[in-house]
């Protein structure tokens, strides 16, 4: 089986889609991607990584979070708790055996009682600060002078558009204080150590990295064979 399939899961009264490979395998790894623009920059690398897992006999599923990709609900209605519920529902309905998260994915991956793997987990404050800086830079190019304080004031009262990403007040408030939760069964990975590759999520444009996809797949295969399932 090499073709992808598109399972869905139910959460909060709506149905969300996923991209998955290898339905018949015993190990099924739920991938929780980086958040917002970082997710877009690594999607291709992640999907190539899932193909490599499939070739190794490991199933995987990349979750579409509510408000992202094919989702019909507005992003501004979501916050970290609704995304945490989405990850838990998806893992349960699909029968995940392991959870692997990247960057901001580590802020919402703690629901399921399964073995966890994290790559370069990020604090919420780092993510929101970069988005705000991008908005300020964009405004400056358009001849508008915007301050961080003014944007945060807007964010406290209603949705804030950060470079095309519309976040509601509860999302921005939650991100400001969010850090990855400590978990009992956790394998944390660093780029340049266990994983070969570069932080594609920081780049201005989406990129591909076949070596990095293969390196993550190899590490996930070895790790997931050693625990859970």
């Amino acid at each position, binding site marked *: 089986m090499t073709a992808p399939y598109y399972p869905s899961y139910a959460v909060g009264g709506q149905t969300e889609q996923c991209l998955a490979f290898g339905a018949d395998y015993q190990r099924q790894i739920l991938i929780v991607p980086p958040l917002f623009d970082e997710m877009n920059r690594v999607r291709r690398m992640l999907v190539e990584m899932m193909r490599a897992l499939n070739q190794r006999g490991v199933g995987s599923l990349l979750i579409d979070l509510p408000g992202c990709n094919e989702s019909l609900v507005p992003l501004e209605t979501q916050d970290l708790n609704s995304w945490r519920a989405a990850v838990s529902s998806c893992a349960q309905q699909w029968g995940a055996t392991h959870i692997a998260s990247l960057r901001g994915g580590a802020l919402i991956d703690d629901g399921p009682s399964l073995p966890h793997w994290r790559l370069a987990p990020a604090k919420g404050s780092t993510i929101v600060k970069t988005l705000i800086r991008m908005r300020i830079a964009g405004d*400056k190019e358009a001849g508008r002078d915007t301050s961080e304080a003014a944007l945060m004031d807007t964010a406290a009262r209603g949705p804030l558009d950060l470079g095309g990403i519309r976040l509601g007040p509860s999302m921005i408030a939650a991100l400001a204080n969010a850090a990855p939760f400590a978990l009992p069964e956790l394998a944390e990975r660093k780029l340049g150590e266990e994983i070969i590759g570069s932080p594609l999520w920081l*780049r201005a444009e989406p990129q591909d990295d076949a070596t990095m996809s293969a390196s993550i797949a190899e590490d996930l295969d070895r790790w997931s064979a050693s625990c859970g399932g």
Partner: protein
Amino acid sequence: MPFVEDQTETTIRELLIDVLGVAPATVAAMTNETPLFGALPELDSMAVAGLLTEMEDRLDIMIDDSDIDGELFETFGSLVAFAKAKVAAKG
């Protein structure tokens, strides 16, 4: 005397490779006079946002956005000097 490159400067070189995706050989050849903004196509105003946040994380500094002006990214040397001043200021 062995040549020891300053750790802050090394971090800045790594940032240019990691965040901007500039070729390592290009970054290794940079000197204080190498122009950045306007000369390096990878460095646009959006990339600056990611660069500043990652700089804060890796050097454990805080950057007030009012500190940032056009001259900061003018040359490799001006960026390193800014970072060194921030690192020195935290004590």
